């Protein structure tokens, strides 16, 4: 099988079962089938706590599936590979490194010579608009700036696969829209395949080519919707288009049901 024609990411019947601290078993992901084509931007939406993030850790190689297979560019995932970039929900910048040194970390870890790593890091910092901040430490930056550092640190490794786990959920609404636009701009230059996990349906439609709706946990794919909005998009304006609202309504019909199930379960737990 040629690696060039195979899809970027393929999950075949992947399940992940965790042991809970009390000794029980918790199924986070169940019999998940999902294919992400090369250069495709796929958003995954689902009720909170349904196992969306677990899907990403399976693709990244940070966790192994309990059952089934995970393939990246046609090859089964064995540990963390060098094709993958991951932007985490929480802040994952190294607080003891300066901004420049944070962005240099990836290439340095991968054995790129220092001067070359520095040059690449400076390029990406300029692209995310933080060239003037390279000597700062993360705590001296705002939340949005720290996220930019994380994006630069991820993109500097030229990932073929970009995994994003609710990356902008901690930001305020305006910063979030701005960051989404910036992400689209950065991504359009790279041709990377993206899996973007979020619980915000609007965000997912505005960004993605395909929106995958997950079921209430254990997560599996419920529906896949194609988003036929033209690119390049601007997140703030695309939201107001009639087609966007149509798609939103259509997906929400599917997602809303799962959210309701999750809520009822939560209520049952409380009762």
């Amino acid at each position, binding site marked *: 099988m040629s690696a060039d024609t195979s899809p970027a990411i393929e999950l075949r019947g992947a399940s992940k079962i965790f042991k809970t601290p009390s000794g029980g078993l918790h199924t986070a992901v169940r019999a998940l089938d999902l294919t992400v084509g090369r250069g495709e931007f796929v958003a995954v939406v689902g009720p909170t706590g349904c196992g969306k993030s677990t899907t990403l850790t399976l693709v*990244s190689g*940070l966790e192994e599936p309990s059952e089934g297979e995970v393939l990246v560019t046609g090859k089964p995932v064995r540990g*963390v590979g*060098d094709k*993958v*970039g*991951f932007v*985490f929900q*929480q*802040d*994952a910048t*190294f*607080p*003891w*490194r*300066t901004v420049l040194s944070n962005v240099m*970390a*990836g290439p340095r*870890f*991968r054995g790129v010579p220092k001067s070359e790593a520095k040059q690449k890091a400076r390029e990406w910092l300029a692209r995310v608009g933080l060239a003037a901040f390279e000597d700062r*430490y*993360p*705590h*001296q930056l705002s939340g949005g700036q720290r996220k930019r550092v994380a994006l630069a*640190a991820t993109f500097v*490794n030229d990932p073929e696969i970009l995994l994003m786990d609710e990356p902008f959920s901690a930001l305020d609404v305006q910063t979030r829209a701005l960051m989404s636009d910036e992400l689209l701009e950065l991504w359009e230059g790279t041709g990377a395949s993206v899996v973007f996990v979020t619980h915000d349906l609007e965000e997912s439609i505005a960004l993605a080519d395909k929106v995958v709706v997950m079921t209430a946990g254990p997560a599996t794919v419920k529906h896949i919707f194609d988003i036929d909005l033209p690119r390049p998009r601007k997140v703030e304006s695309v939201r107001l288009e009639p087609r966007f609202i149509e798609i939103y309504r259509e997906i929400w019909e599917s997602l809303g049901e799962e959210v309701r199930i999750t809520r009822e379960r939560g209520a049952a737990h409380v009762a």
Partner: protein
Amino acid sequence: MSHEVLSTPVVDTVKAPNRAQSRARAARRRKAVVNGARVLLLIGVLGLWELLARTKTIDPFNFSMPSKIWDQIWTWITHGTALGSLGEQIWYTLHEALLGWIIGVVTGVVFGIALGRITFLADVLGPYIKVLNSIPRIVLAPIFVIWFGLGPASKVASAVVLVFFPVFFNAFQGAREVDRNLVANARILGASDRRVTLQVVIPSATSWIFTSLHVSFGFALIGAIVGEYIGATKGIGLLVAQSQGTFNAAGVYAAMVILAVVALVAEGLLTFAERRIFRWKPSGSDS
């Protein structure tokens, strides 16, 4: 001096200074008041001690008095001690404490990080370390004197055993409590296990380790002093033992004062080093 500062808080209401100025002045004044109160407290306590001893309310032979202690320190400084110059004694003790501290810190950090990272090691060695830690380690000092003789080696050894455990436990805890996100991020970015340990685990554990360094330098001094007290040829601990042997209470107190000064200077140096190393911490933020 303090008196002068204390009497200044007369606000010049005529000029009506702006807020920033008056606030800065209030802060300065508060600082002066605090410092003044500190000095007064010290003078009060020392004065009371001197007074009670001079009026024989407390036995000056047993309790000595500040003036005698000062005389003793002065004699040591100008004429040297019975064991040689005072500087030599201080240097001897400091040398032992420092050596013991460095060895204890290095082994503590290495073991702590290793056990924190390698679960197998932690599971195997964990119970033994707990047992060793529960031994009152100061009783090992006489054994070390028997093993290593009257020279510095026995004092270094007792300093090491006192320093090792707090540093070890903090390093271990620090390695265990590393933010999982940072480790995951480093691995995704391409870091090998060794790199994760060196560039993620150790930097995040440093704040834990530094907490223990402050305490443990005090322990190193204790180890050295106790070792000297039990048997030595030189050092401040021996000075204490000799003063005690000759019923020279002032000598014991004087040695204590000298030790306190030494410990404070060491603490200051450590704090200075910490500030330099932790520039990335929010407390150092200036913008």
